[in-house]
């Protein structure tokens, strides 16, 4: 899932500025399950904004609404009327959600209420950790299902480096060494021979280095009369 964290109320108030009518827009997918921007959080942020601006003598009209997914036009259509009737939309979606609102409603001012952090999973209740860096050319098949791009601080393809100590990374003793994890897993699976193959430098053009990415599936596209 996409993991995000709420911005501070102070920053949110700055972003909302002197708008009088605010719509807090939650998202029912990734940011709901990481407790950052679902309907519960949208209602809380909305109440926080109402109360703190009233205390400051500048009361705002704040409502909240949550859609199933902010990153798809179809779901955004459901809130078209509410979005058009306010001075600012505070999106509690990830960065994709904020941009989807901006793109779908060109005349609406939208600001982010979250910081989008990474793609990851909950390792225990209340703890989320990064697992995928979306490099665009998955090599998990070479590393026992543990990603060296996301989990090695240097994204090494032939690790570990000299900074690996007792299974931990030199950047922080609390960070496990990604390559130690790979080694341990391959060893437990009896597949250490996989590591004997030296990996050539990665083609980073499939990642961010190649500029903004896009996928086109001609078999799925609608022909003009179907649109």
């Amino acid at each position, binding site marked *: 899932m996409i993991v995000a964290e709420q911005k*501070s*109320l*102070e920053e949110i108030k700055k972003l909302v500025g002197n708008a009088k009518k605010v719509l807090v827009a939650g998202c029912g997918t990734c940011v709901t399950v990481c407790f950052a921007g679902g309907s519960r959080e949208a209602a*809380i942020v909305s109440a*926080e904004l109402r*109360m*703190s601006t*009233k*205390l*400051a*003598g500048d*009361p705002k009209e704040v409502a909240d609404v949550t859609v199933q997914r902010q990153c798809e036009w179809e779901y955004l259509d459901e809130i078209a009327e509410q979005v058009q009737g306010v001075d600012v939309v505070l999106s509690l979606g990830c960065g994709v959600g904020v941009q989807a609102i901006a793109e779908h409603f060109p005349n609406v001012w939208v600001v982010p209420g979250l910081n989008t952090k990474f793609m990851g999973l909950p390792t225990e209740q209340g703890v989320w950790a990064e697992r995928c860096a979306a490099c665009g050319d998955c090599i998990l098949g070479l590393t026992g299902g543990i990603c060296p791009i996301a989990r090695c601080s240097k994204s090494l393809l032939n690790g570990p480096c000299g900074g690996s100590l007792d299974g931990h990374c030199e950047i922080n003793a609390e960070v496990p060494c990604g390559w130690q994890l790979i080694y341990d897993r391959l060893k437990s699976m009896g597949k250490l021979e996989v590591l004997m193959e030296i990996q050539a430098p990665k083609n980073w053009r499939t990642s961010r280095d190649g500029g903004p990415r896009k996928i086109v599936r001609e078999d799925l596209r609608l022909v003009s009369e179907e649109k």
Partner: protein
Amino acid sequence: MEYLQSLLKEIGLEPERARMFNLSAAMAGKFVEAAKEMTEKVTELGPNPLKSKMKDER
């Protein structure tokens, strides 16, 4: 409760305005004690500033 108190603080209200007491229905003495304690605390803090703002608006 800690989270709620942190929200109150962020909003600009005293976090002590909200507290949780664990009691069973059979603990009358403890209930009275808790009610007295909270009454004293909110009396000391004074009226909820949000309520007085609401009156100003009327």
